C-alpha cells in the first residue's frame, strides 16, 4: 500500500514488542503481525512471553503478557535483543517492559488506560506520561480504548465486548506504521469468528480503523518499510516449534508407514503438541490424554510393544515422573520417543519460561546404567526434521530417544520452507516374522538392535519385562557375566548411532582462537554473536550439536582445532560438563538461568572477553 501522508523510511530490521494485560490479546496481535510480515516476505523471529496464570489480576504487573517479533530484509536468527518499539496497552505493561527498551526507542501507549486506578495497580506514584520519566524515548499517546469504542459504537456489541477488540485497533495502527497489508488478518478474522459474524465484523472494522487512524492522525512523521528478505526459493509458512514438532512426528509416521500413537498428560509448554496431534485423526493418529505422566509413558510403551510409532511428551517435572518408564523402555529395548519441552525448574519452577536445565537429567536421570539417544532441534522449524530423526533412530536401534526442545523453541516461530514429501527419506521398519530364527534378544550385528516382534505374529510368542534378560534368548537372568554383557550391549548400541548421524558443522573458519559450541535454542543468539565478532575481525567460529547422545563422531576433532572453547547454555554448565569429561577439553561456560533466552550481546561480550579484543559497537 502506498503512503498517503508523510515520508517513508526504509529499514532492514525492526523489533516490536506488543505488551498488555494477559486478557488484552497481545499474543494474538503479535502472531498476526508475524504472519503478515512473513507472508509479506520478511524473515521473522518471535519471542512470546506470558504468565502461567490464565488471568492474573487485570492491570497488575504479574498479569503482563508480551509478544516480541523481529522482522527483517535479511536472514535473522533471533527475535532481537531489545525492541525498537514498545506497544504498551496499560501502565503495568509499560513498567514491566520499559527496562528492555533502549533509550531513543519508541513507546506507543494506550493513553486511556493510564488512569489513577491502573497506575496504582502498576505501582506508579505518578503517571509516567506526565512526570518526564520517559523523556529519553519517543512517546506516542494513542487513546486506543476511546478510538476503538467509537469505531465500534454501531457494531451491536456491548461495552465490555467492544473493549475486547482494542488489540485489533492497535494491530491496525502497527500495520500502517510498517506498511503491512491488513487483508491477511481480515481473512483470519472471518475464518476464526465465522460462527460469530458480529464479532468478526467488529474486529475487522476496528483493525481498519486503527490503520486509517495511522494514515490520518499525523502522529508519526514517518512510516517505515522493511523490504522483503532474500530467503531460499520455495513455499513458506510461519510455524512455531511445537507445531513443527507435531507435524514432524506425523510425517515420521507416514514415512514409516506405521500409525502414530501419542499419549500425554497436559503440561505447559508441551500441551500444544497433544492439541495439534489430536486434530490429525483422519491421518489415523491416535491420541490418549492419560491420567498422569506415568500412565502416558506407560501407554506409549504398550503401543510400542504393539508395533506403533509410540510417542509421549512432557515438560519440566513431567520428565521426572517418566524416568521409570524410560528405564523400562531401555531394558525392553522398545522404540519410543519422548518429546521433552524444557521449562524453568526445579520443581514447578516457572512453567512458561525457558531453560536448558534438563540435559543431564535426560542423559543420566534413571536408575542403573540406562543410556538413551538424545536429539535437540536448534530452531522452531528444525523441530520438524529432528522429530523425524528421533523416530528414525528409535526404530532402527530399538531404543528410547529423547527429543529435547524447550519453551522458547516450542512457542517461538519463524518461516518454514515447506518440504517436499518425496525428498524425505523413508523410515524402514521390519517386524520379526520368522519363528524358526526368532530370539527375543538376538541382535543385529551392525546396529545391535534386537528384533521388534509384535503380538499377533504366530510363533513369536515371548515375554519381555523390566528384569534383566539373558543375551539372545531373553529369559530372566541373574547371571553376573550375562548382566555385564547386557550393560555393555545397551551402552554400545547407543554409541554406535554416532556412525549414522551427520558430522557437526563449523560455521566460520575450521580452526582458530575460539569455538563457540552450543545446543538447542541458543542457536540464533550464538550464530548472530559469532557473525558480529567475525565481522569485527575476531578468530571465532561456532558449531551447534543436534545429536547430544551420542555426539557426532567428528566433534573431538573439531574441538581440537580451536585454542579455546566457549559453551553458552541456559543452565549452570551441563553440556560443558559432558564435553569436559568426554574430551578432556577445558571448555569455558557462559551460563545464565533467568527463564529468558540469551541476548546476542551477552554472548558477544563473552567472546570479546575470551579473545581479548574490542567488540565493534552498532
Amino acid at each position: 500500500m502506498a503512503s498517503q501522508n508523510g515520508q517513508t523510511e526504509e529499514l532492514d530490521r525492526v523489533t516490536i514488542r506488543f505488551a498488555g494485560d494477559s486478557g488484552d490479546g497481545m499474543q494474538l496481535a503479535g502472531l498476526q503481525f508475524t504472519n503478515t510480515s512473513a507472508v509479506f516476505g520478511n524473515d521473522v523471529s518471535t519471542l512470546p512471553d506470558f504468565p502461567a496464570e490464565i488471568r492474573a489480576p487485570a492491570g497488575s504487573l504479574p498479569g503482563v503478557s508480551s509478544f516480541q517479533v523481529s522482522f527483517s530484509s535479511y536472514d535473522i536468527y533471533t527475535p532481537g535483543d531489545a525492541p525498537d518499539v514498545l506497544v504498551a496497552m496499560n501502565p503495568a505493561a509499560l513498567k514491566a517492559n520499559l527496562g528492555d527498551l533502549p533509550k531513543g526507542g519508541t513507546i506507543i501507549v494506550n493513553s486511556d488506560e493510564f488512569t489513577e486506578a491502573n497506575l496504582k495497580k502498576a505501582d506508579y506514584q505518578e503517571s509516567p506520561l506526565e512526570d518526564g520519566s520517559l523523556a529519553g524515548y519517543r512517546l506516542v499517546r494513542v487513546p486506543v480504548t476511546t478510538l476503538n469504542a467509537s469505531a465500534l459504537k454501531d457494531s451491536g456489541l456491548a461495552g465490555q465486548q467492544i473493549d475486547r477488540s482494542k488489540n485489533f485497533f492497535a494491530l491496525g495502527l502497527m500495520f500502517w506504521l510498517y506498511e503491512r497489508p491488513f487483508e491477511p488478518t481480515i481473512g483470519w478474522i472471518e475464518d476464526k469468528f465465522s460462527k460469530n459474524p458480529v464479532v468478526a465484523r467488529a474486529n475487522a472494522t476496528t483493525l481498519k480503523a486503527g490503520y486509517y487512524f495511522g494514515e490520518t492522525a499525523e502522529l508519526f512523521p514517518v512510516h517505515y518499510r522493511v523490504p522483503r528478505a532474500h530467503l531460499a526459493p520455495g513455499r513458506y509458512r510461519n510455524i512455531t516449534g511445537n507445531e513443527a514438532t507435531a507435524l514432524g512426528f506425523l510425517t515420521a509416521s507416514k514415512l514409516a508407514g506405521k500409525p502414530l500413537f501419542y499419549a500425554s498428560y497436559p503440561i505447559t509448554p508441551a500441551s500444544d503438541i497433544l492439541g495439534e496431534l489430536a486434530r490429525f485423526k483422519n491421518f489415523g493418529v491416535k491420541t490418549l490424554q492419560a491420567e498422569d505422566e506415568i500412565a502416558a509413558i506407560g501407554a506409549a510403551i504398550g503401543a510400542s510393544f504393539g508395533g506403533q510409532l509410540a510417542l509421549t511428551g512432557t515438560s519440566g517435572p513431567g520428565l521426572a515422573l517418566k524416568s521409570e518408564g524410560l528405564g523400562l523402555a531401555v531394558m525392553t529395548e522398545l522404540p519410543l520417543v519422548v518429546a521433552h519441552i524444557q521449562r524453568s525448574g526445579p520443581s514447578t519452577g516457572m512453567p512458561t519460561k525457558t531453560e536448558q536445565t534438563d540435559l543431564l537429567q535426560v542423559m543420566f536421570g534413571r536408575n542403573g546404567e540406562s543410556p538413551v539417544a538424545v536429539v535437540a532441534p536448534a530452531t522452531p522449524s528444525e523441530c520438524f526434521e529432528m522429530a523425524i530423526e528421533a523416530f528414525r533412530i528409535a526404530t532402527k536401534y530399538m531404543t528410547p530417544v529423547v527429543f529435547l526442545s524447550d519453551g522458547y523453541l516450542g512457542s517461538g516461530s519463524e518461516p518454514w520452507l515447506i518440504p517436499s514429501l518425496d525428498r524425505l527419506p523413508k523410515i524402514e521398519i521390519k517386524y520379526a516374522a520368522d519363528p524358526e530364527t526368532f530370539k527375543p534378544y538376538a541382535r543385529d550385528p551392525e546396529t545391535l538392535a534386537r528384533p521388534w516382534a509384535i503380538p499377533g505374529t504366530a510363533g513369536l510368542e515371548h515375554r519381555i519385562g523390566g528384569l534383566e534378560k539373558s543375551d539372545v534368548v531373553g529369559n530372566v537372568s541373574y547371571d553376573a557375566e550375562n548382566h555385564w554383557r547386557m550393560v555393555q550391549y545397551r551402552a554400545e548400541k547407543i554409541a554406535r548411532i554416532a556412525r549414522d548421524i551427520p558430522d557437526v558443522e563449523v560455521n566460520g573458519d575450521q580452526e582458530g582462537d575460539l569455538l563457540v559450541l552450543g545446543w538447542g535454542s541458543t542457536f540464533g543468539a550464538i550464530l548472530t554473536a559469532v557473525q558480529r565478532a567475525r565481522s569485527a575481525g575476531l578468530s571465532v567460529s561456532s558449531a551447534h550439536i543436534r545429536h547430544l547422545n551420542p555426539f557426532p563422531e567428528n566433534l573431538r576433532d573439531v574441538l581440537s582445532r580451536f585454542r579455546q572453547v566457549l559453551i553458552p547454555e541456559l543452565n549452570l554448565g551441563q553440556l560443558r560438563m559432558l564435553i569436559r569429561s568426554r574430551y578432556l577439553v577445558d571448555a569455558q561456560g557462559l551460563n545464565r538461568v533467568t527463564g529468558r533466552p540469551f541476548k546476542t550481546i551477552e554472548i558477544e561480550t563473552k567472546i570479546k572477553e575470551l579473545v581479548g579484543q574490542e567488540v565493534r559497537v552498532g
Partner: protein
Amino acid sequence: MTTIPLTRKDFVSDQEVRWCPGCGDYSILTQTQKLMPDLDIPRENIVFISGIGCSSRLPYYMNTYGFHTIHGRAPAIATGLKASRPELSVWVITGDGDGLSIGGNHLLHVMRRNVDLVIVLFNNRIYGLTKGQYSPTSELGKITKTSPLGTIDYPVNPLSFAIGAGATFIARSLDNDTKHLVDTLDRAAKHHGTSFVEVYQNCLVYNDQAFSGFADKSVRTDRTVQLEHGKPLIFGKEQDRAIKLNGTRPEVVDLRSGEDGDLLIHDERRDDPTMAFILAQMEHPEFPVPLGVFRAVERPTYEELMDRQVRDAITRQGDGSLEALFAEGDTWTVEG
C-alpha cells in the same frame, strides 16, 4: 494363526515356575492356562501384562505374548496396547499392592475408560515379594514386620473401588475353588469392556489362612454365597439361609422359619451400581462372603470409541493429506 483346538499344554511356557510351594498363585495360573484353549482366540493374539509382585510373575509362565512391566503401571501399558491394537486379547495380572497401592490411580482410570481388558487382582492382603509388609487390603490392626503394633490403615475393598470407578464387569473368586475360578475367568474373558476379577489368594508364607475362615472347603457353603443372575442369594449346607434387604441394609434370613417372601434377587445387569456396592460391602463374619459376578453391564469400550473417532474423521475429512496440512493457513512463495 495357531491351529485350533489347543490344549492347556500349549499355554505352558518353558519357564520354571518359582512361586513358593503351596502358593495360591499356582491354582490361578493353572486355571488360566486351562481356560485359554476354550476361548478360541489364536494364541498369538493373547497378551498377559503385569506389574510387580508375586502375582506379576505370571506372564513368564504363559506361552503367549507377555510383558512384565513396572510396579503398578500394567493397566496403563495395557491401555496403550489395547487402544492401538484392539484385536488383541489383553490380560492384566496384578495384586493388592501393585493394583491398589502404587497403581491405584491407573486401576481407577482403566476401569472408568472401560478398556476391554481382563484384570485379575490376586488379593492375599500382604506384600509377599518384599517379605511380609502390610498391604492396602490388610485388615485393620494387622501385625506385620512393618506394623509391629498393628496397622492403623483402614483397608480398601477392591470390589467397592472397582464399582466406584465404573467397571462394567466385577467378580470375585477363590484360589481354592478351581471350578468356580475357571468359570469366573471365563465370564470375565467373554465380557466386552473392562472385567475386574478379585481372587482371594492364600499366601502360605506371610499371611497363611487369611481367608480360611470362609473359604475353606469345610465352611465355604455356610460362609459364602454364590451370586447367580436372576436368583435369590441362598446359601448354607442345607440351602436354608438367604439374604434380604431391609432398606439398604442386607440381612440374613432363615428360610426354615418360612421367610421367603421378598428375598434379594441378584441382578448383575442392573446399570445402577448401588446393589453391587451393597453386596461388595458384605464381609465375613457378619455376612456370607458373596462370590461370582457382581455386575456385568454393556457399554462401548474405550478402544471402540477411539477407533470410531478415527473412522468418522476419515469419512468426514477424507484421508489426511500431509501436503495440505503443511500448507495450512497463510503461505507465500519465494521465487528462485
